[in-house]
């Protein structure tokens, strides 16, 4: 079982991590002062008593932007090691990176054409599906109504 020896540092690190977390929580529990109070548990300490849960609304676009960001971030991450050993890779590396960048670029054009970066009410080049009369506004209104807000 000599092959398992190399796992020892990982195991030690794991134990250390668990210990550290347990220690942090345990110590703060033991040493910290605890004076619970009803007002402290309320969402708004300034005095407004919440009556019902509000629908949490924010545009799904945020997610899209975040995902697109991740994709381009990864492109950069790929470019970085290539740049570091550019000399050794030579022409092969250059061609590979151009192909890679080209693929990402085509995807980018696709995203732009699809309206993924448009902000605001729908002006998308191609809508998904064919439901007539369905716009961003109508969707917003419906979500609002479903959320139970009194008009």
């Amino acid at each position, binding site marked *: 079982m000599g092959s398992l020896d190399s796992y020892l540092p990982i195991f030690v690190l794991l134990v250390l991590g668990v210990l550290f977390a347990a220690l942090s929580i345990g110590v703060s529990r033991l040493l910290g002062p605890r004076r619970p109070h009803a007002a402290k548990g309320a969402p708004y300490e300034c005095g407004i008593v919440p009556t019902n849960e509000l629908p949490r609304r924010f545009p799904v676009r945020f997610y899209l932007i975040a995902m697109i960001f991740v994709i381009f971030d990864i492109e950069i991450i790929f470019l970085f090691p290539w740049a570091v050993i550019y000399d050794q890779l030579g022409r092969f590396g250059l061609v590979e990176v151009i192909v890679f960048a080209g693929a990402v670029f085509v995807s980018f054009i696709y995203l732009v*054409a699809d309206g993924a970066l448009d902000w605001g009410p729908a002006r998308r080049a191609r809508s998904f599906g064919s439901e007539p009369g369905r716009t961003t506004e109508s969707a917003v209104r419906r979500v609002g109504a479903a959320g139970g807000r009194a008009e």
Partner: protein
Amino acid sequence: MTPFAALAPAGLAIPHIDYTALLPELILLGGVLVLIGVSAMTPRRLPTGVYATMTVAIAAAALVASLRLWRDVQNHGAFTTVAHSVDVDGFAVYFLVLVSCILIVAAIIGSGYLRREGIAGCEYYALALISGSGAMLMASANDLIFIFLALEVLSIPLYVMAGFDRRRPTSQEAAIKYFVLGAFSSAVFVYGIALVYGATGSTNLPEIGAFLAHNVITANGVLLAGIALLIVGFSFKVAAVPFHMWTPDVYQGAPTPVTGFMAALAKAGGFAAFLRVFVATFPTLRGDWQPVIWALAALTLVGGAIVALAQRDVKRMLAYSSINHAGFVLIGLQAVTTKGVAASAYYLFAYAFMVLGSFAVVGVVGAKGDRRHDLEAYRGLAARNPVLATVFSVLLLAQAGVPFTTGFFAKFYVIAASVGAHSYALAVVAMASAAIAVFFYLRVVLLMYSTQPADPGDEATTPGPAGGGVATLVRIPVGRLVVQPSIALGLAVSVGVTVVFGVWPQPLIDFTRAATFIFH
């Protein structure tokens, strides 16, 4: 730059890459870029048929490239490339051909469905091509890491495709379920890779095989645990009982042509890697894993067939039937012989066309909205659409294993492989499950040819599209179903392959017999 230069290894060896050997995959991926590029550059949306035609052309080009590769392999022998992590042998190229065929048929069938549902865009086709390239890479991968990457390339587009019909909650549910369980199984798979690597010191299949052949590991707990996890990971992908729980929900929820594509492609890709890893790499340990596969196969055969009996929804029923089919393919794996591998490969080929065709019919019967999948929707179909009913009967009987179809020879071949490996009991279990399976295939056939109406109105009620959060019931009059020309073409191809190679199986059987691994 200078501070980082020290990090670079001195004298980096760039592996030799034989691009012609990777041509089919490269064609598919290049085709994806062309597809999305075209879709981005055209201001007005193109009809779905344009994308379908392009996809068929791309897949046909991949098919031609694969066949050329087949000729090279048969004439000049198998070889590896990209530092031995890609195998180009008969087995791999067989699956390249199969995947190309699946893509062609799926594109043809899908276009009719998308037109009917009014879903525009190139996404279906692009995702199918990416997934296809993943399946191809799975078949040729010769390295566990590479298999994992290919598995993800195969799976991720399928998750998206399952949730493709955004307007249907079931489709979304299918996508989420498939994604979560798929990601989970991938994690299990990676853990298995890690353990195998830990035990053998390599992720490269031939190196692992050589290590196991030359070393006797006395305490092989880590290795066996790794193999067990690999089995679990693969079993998830190919939907073997007891790792099949996602299958019925996903097959039911996904848009119907996607279900057919998914069933054909994921099984082909998953089993290709499953067979290569276990038969070509771990034959020395067969004493340890063969009984596990035996049990898996038996459970899958019987479980799939029995649970299918209770289904009212045809898509769920076919999902369980596909589980039953997975059991048959596992029999070929369980044999651990060249014949067994050939039998499994044949089964996957036959199954691909049967399942693509079957789900195409289900998609047609589902009508606009893709909702009518209850058994009752099939009542009296023969009177309304006689040709469609005949086609579906042929496909279902072929799945049941009736002679003069590929389905029969597929079953015969795996049974022969199983008996050849002295697994008589498994052969009996398999045929018993086939006999059970006949019941639910025939039930559909019976309904189609039944002339007794269920209710006098002869109308079916299905939940309509949700309006304002309230589901309303709309009555869809049962009339003659419209079969899109492209779907008719796809069905003709599926039935043609099923029947022609059922009557004249010689070429396909020779093809599978030549589809062998390179044993290093």
